[in-house]
């Protein structure tokens, strides 16, 4: 396995159907991609499914990878596409499915102190609590760096919708953060 040190060698090995190369490739990117999948999923189990489907797609389309680009970015895009495709397939546009009591809380967008204190796992859980539509837009915009026009194209929504939902996603996240911080404060 350790023979495949170079990325291109890994790719070539995978293209040749070498299972060791495939496993090495998987091991190299699985953790990072699992983090991506977790952000686009509502649960860990769903993220595992996405990771599985995503790597299947990676291996099945590996021959079309351009060696000029970054392989990691290509794999990441496949993961994101897989997650979005899964979302589209299930079509759970539950945009109003967020926790109403969370929205009832006053979300002070200027108060970032709790957010700064939170761990990544906590943030992942917060993102996972978002309704799928909000979650996808938030991930694509805030994390992947898509603009709203691109998000509109990817998700099949208008640019304005993307903007407004991104704003609401922020508000919801902030409200959830505040609520979680308050709960922790009360427990102390």
């Amino acid at each position, binding site marked *: 396995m350790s023979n495949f040190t170079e990325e291109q060698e890994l790719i070539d090995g995978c293209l040749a159907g070498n299972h060791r190369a*495939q*496993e090495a490739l998987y091991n190299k990117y699985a953790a990072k991609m699992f983090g991506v999948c977790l952000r686009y999923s509502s649960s860990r189990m769903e993220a595992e499914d996405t990771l*599985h489907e995503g790597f299947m797609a990676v291996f099945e389309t590996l021959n079309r990878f*351009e060696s000029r680009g970054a392989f990691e970015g290509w794999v990441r895009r496949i993961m994101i596409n897989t997650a979005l495709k899964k979302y589209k397939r299930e079509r759970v546009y539950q945009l109003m499915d967020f926790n109403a009591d969370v929205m009832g809380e006053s979300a002070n967008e200027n108060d*970032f102190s709790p957010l700064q204190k939170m*761990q990544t796992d906590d943030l992942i859980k917060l993102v996972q609590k978002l309704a799928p539509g909000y979650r996808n837009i938030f991930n694509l915009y805030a994390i992947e760096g898509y603009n709203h026009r691109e998000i509109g194209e990817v998700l099949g929504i208008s640019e304005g919708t993307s903007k407004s939902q991104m704003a609401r996603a922020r508000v919801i*996240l902030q409200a959830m953060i505040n609520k979680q911080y308050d709960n922790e404060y009360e427990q102390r």
Partner: protein
Amino acid sequence: MSNDKEHIDDIFKNHFEEYEPTPPGNVWSRVKNGLGNSNAEETLYNKFDKHQPQPPQWVWTSLSNILKNRQKIKLYKRVAAASLFFISLSGLIASQFAASSTIDSLFSFEKDDNLIVQTTPINPIILQEQALNPAHTPSIAAEKNYTLFTKRQPIIKDILAKVNTPILENMIADNHNLSDIVIPAVIASEPTVIPSPEAFSLASVFANISVPTLGFGIPNIPQNNLNYRAPRHKKPNAIETSIEIFGGASSTFRKIDNNADAHVASIRKESEKASYANQWGIKFNIVKNHLLFTNGIGVSQYNYTGTYIFQKEDSINLRPNFQSPNDPKPFKQEDYYKSYTSIANTNVLTNYKFVSVSSALGYVLNASKKINIIPQIGINTAYLMSNIGPKLNAGKPTEYTKMAEANSLSLNQRMMISAAFAIKVNYKVCDKMNLGIEPFMNSQVNRQTATSPLGGQKLTAKGVNLSLSYKF
């Protein structure tokens, strides 16, 4: 405010950029298994294999049809069935040749140096998405795949035109894009290029062709079951026979002319009310090509109530009218007179008993699998057997009277012929039995000129029969 928004976004982004949780180990196992099975699962041949009736089954079916129907069908149909058998057998042999080659024999193309047969599975959906994504610049490898796709597409169309099997159509109808069908063929595990496009098809098309079954129908053959016993299909043109028992109630009425024989009575009244009746019997039905021919025999009884008022008392003139040829007893004038006076102002219940023979033609309309509607038209011939009845006193029979005979039809005109109309609705209880309900109307067409003073009017009956028929 904008900075605040960016701030929260950045916090998330910073956290997530280096976030690398360890996935559970079973994910790789699933990926590995998926990679191992993907080729075998997605090849087009496998898809065909799941849906396609196999040539051996055609052979078996056609052969069993020949054997089972050898005594029942005409010679030319037997010849045609034998031809079907040999065609199926040829298809079986041809299919063996087709099966001995790889799937590429089905979708073969001329070898082209510009084409590369991929050895790695391709996800057609990803391929399609990327092809449609303008932001994506196709790689060299992708271009080659597109080339493959483009060149194979007309072959697919050609196959559709030649084969015309429901299998391919179903695959497309099942939301498979053309690329879904083409690309799995491209990604056969080993690159195998077959000599020419023409080679593809003769054997394969022959093996997959839909063979007409000469009216035997195409049975739903269980896959891979050569022990399947071909169902005994009745030919659509076969004669279907059934025997039926029927019975029901009806109402009859007679249009009354209030013109009494002046020799008998100066005034005659008969009830114009519908009287009750009933009928029952047996029918023999023959159906061929939806046409029904039915013959039946039955009995019926009309219970007819009339009110008679006689005012004339000329007994002498009564004699020819009241004398019955069947009555051996010589009538005396007093008897007639007595008889005459006794029936005056009396209700009389007359029972007309008939034996009837009916014939009708109908057309069988299949309303559903279970229900047939059969409009019918025919002739009902009824022979009057007896028409005696009691005199009624306050609604109760008290004594018999010859008034019934007086009201009878004459002996030489006992035959009553009616036009019969009916609409029968059959419900198929099982393959052999039908339950039916049949509203009908019989309208007498002959006028039974009366030798009796009170007969001679046409009778109309309307009623409903229930029936149970048994096919044999």
